């Protein structure tokens, strides 16, 4: 048994009041540069549970709050949405050297790769209908009703867009390795062309997209994952992010799932909100800017040796170039 496995077993025996608990099969899962993710079995009291450990890495892609992610899992699992059941949150560094949380493993599922032009095959439409409907339900929820009224984020519908631009401009300022004239131009455009006020303040998942949910062989979405960037904000932020062309892998269907109009209609029906074109255009530009900022951050983590996961090098090359191209095409239209 590895040291990590032993320490995890010791922790869970106390935490779950299960002195006979045995941890088996602990193995790290690829991906997820912002958290170290492990799969394992916990056998106790006649049960054999598949669980997931998410531990802070020595350095992360974006400094995210594991408390935020854990509370989002609690809130939306409790609301009956497809979200894994959270099991334990540990903020101290004692048990496993770094903060972590544990949640249920949703088994016998897969994710859709953004590198595939047809990631969902014959299930694309069915999955897309669920994907945009669940996103709409997240937007419809009142943050206070789900216990997230104190989440980070701007709560003034007139100020939320500027708040988000400032948040990501700060990341650009801190993590820009080489001058990024297109990113800088996008920030100026977003500031000079503010969107209409938000229709409401909602919980924004922050990374709601193809690749961040699990679906089963029947094409049913079983788990919305990676809530680490969740915050309060304009629900159009999630919609703009989800339909960003990066997540389509070259497929004309948004997210590789549905025609754009159908996707927006599903979201509108589930959320009770409007995907107003001028506002959504602004949030689409914002999405590509936010993406570029995240990839710049990843590149810096890698270049300075704080997190040498090769996904960070890939982010600095492929995805940053992709979002620079998207921004140039949209903002330089007509040139």
């Amino acid at each position, binding site marked *: 048994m590895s040291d990590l496995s032993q320490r995890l077993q010791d922790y869970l025996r106390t935490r779950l009041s299960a002195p006979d608990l045995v941890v088996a099969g602990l193995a790290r899962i690829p991906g997820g540069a912002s958290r170290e993710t492990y799969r394992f079995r916990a056998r106790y009291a006649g049960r054999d549970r598949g669980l997931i450990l998410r531990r802070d890495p020595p350095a992360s892609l974006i400094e995210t709050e594991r408390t935020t992610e854990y509370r989002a899992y609690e809130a939306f699992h409790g609301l009956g949405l497809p979200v894994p059941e959270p099991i334990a949150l540990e903020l101290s560094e004692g048990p496993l050297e770094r903060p972590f949380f544990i949640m249920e493993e949703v088994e016998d599922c897969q994710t859709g790769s953004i590198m595939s032009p047809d990631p969902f095959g014959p299930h694309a439409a069915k999955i897309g209908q669920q994907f945009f409907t669940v996103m709409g339900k997240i937007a419809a929820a009142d943050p206070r009703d789900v216990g997230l009224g104190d989440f980070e984020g701007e709560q003034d519908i007139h100020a939320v867009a500027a708040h988000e631009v400032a948040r990501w401009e700060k990341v650009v300022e801190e993590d820009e390795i080489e*001058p990024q004239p297109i990113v800088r131009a996008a920030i100026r455009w977003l500031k000079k062309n503010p969107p209409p006020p938000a229709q409401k303040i909602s919980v924004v998942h922050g990374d709601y997209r193809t690749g961040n949910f699990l679906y089963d062989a029947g094409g049913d979405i079983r788990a919305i994952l990676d809530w680490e960037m969740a915050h309060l904000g304009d629900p159009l932020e999630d919609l703009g992010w989800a339909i960003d062309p990066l997540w389509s892998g070259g497929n004309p269907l948004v997210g590789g799932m549905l025609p754009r109009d159908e996707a927006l209609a599903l979201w509108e029906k589930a959320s009770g909100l409007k995907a107003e074109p001028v506002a959504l255009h602004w949030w689409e530009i914002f999405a590509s800017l936010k993406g570029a900022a995240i990839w710049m951050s990843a590149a810096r983590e890698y270049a300075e040796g704080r997190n040498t996961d090769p996904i960070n090098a890939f982010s600095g090359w492929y995805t940053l170039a992709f979002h620079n191209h998207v921004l140039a095409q949209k903002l*330089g239209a*007509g040139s």
Partner: protein
Amino acid sequence: MSPEIPTILQFSLQRLAGGVGEHGAAFAAGQVGLIGMMMTLSAKEYERGADIRHTENEDMRALFGELAGGVGDAALKARLEEAAGSKDESLRISALNANNYALRRLLTDAQIYAEDHGAQDAQTRIWAVLKALAARRLVSLGP
């Protein structure tokens, strides 16, 4: 392109030599696959890197030469004229990058000036260069 190829090669070697397998086969396979992809992309970048940077630098210099005459700000005009007359004296990536970064910063300054002064034609020309720059830097995952 950041990180640069020598950094990628260094950290890839360290990661492979450092035991990516200690976390299990699935994680190791994912890491090796990603490192392999970055090796492939690095090979492509080795071939095109100097050409991309030199072409970008020349495009920006040509643009600055066109823009300088329409700029009323004496200091910015002088910077544009000086940059327009500059050259890449070396084709080393580090030297091309140094020139490229300086030219990109000047491009942003020129774009802000054009935006603030409502110089639509200048903005159009700048965006044309930026669009070409972005298209040239796209990374293909194909053969």
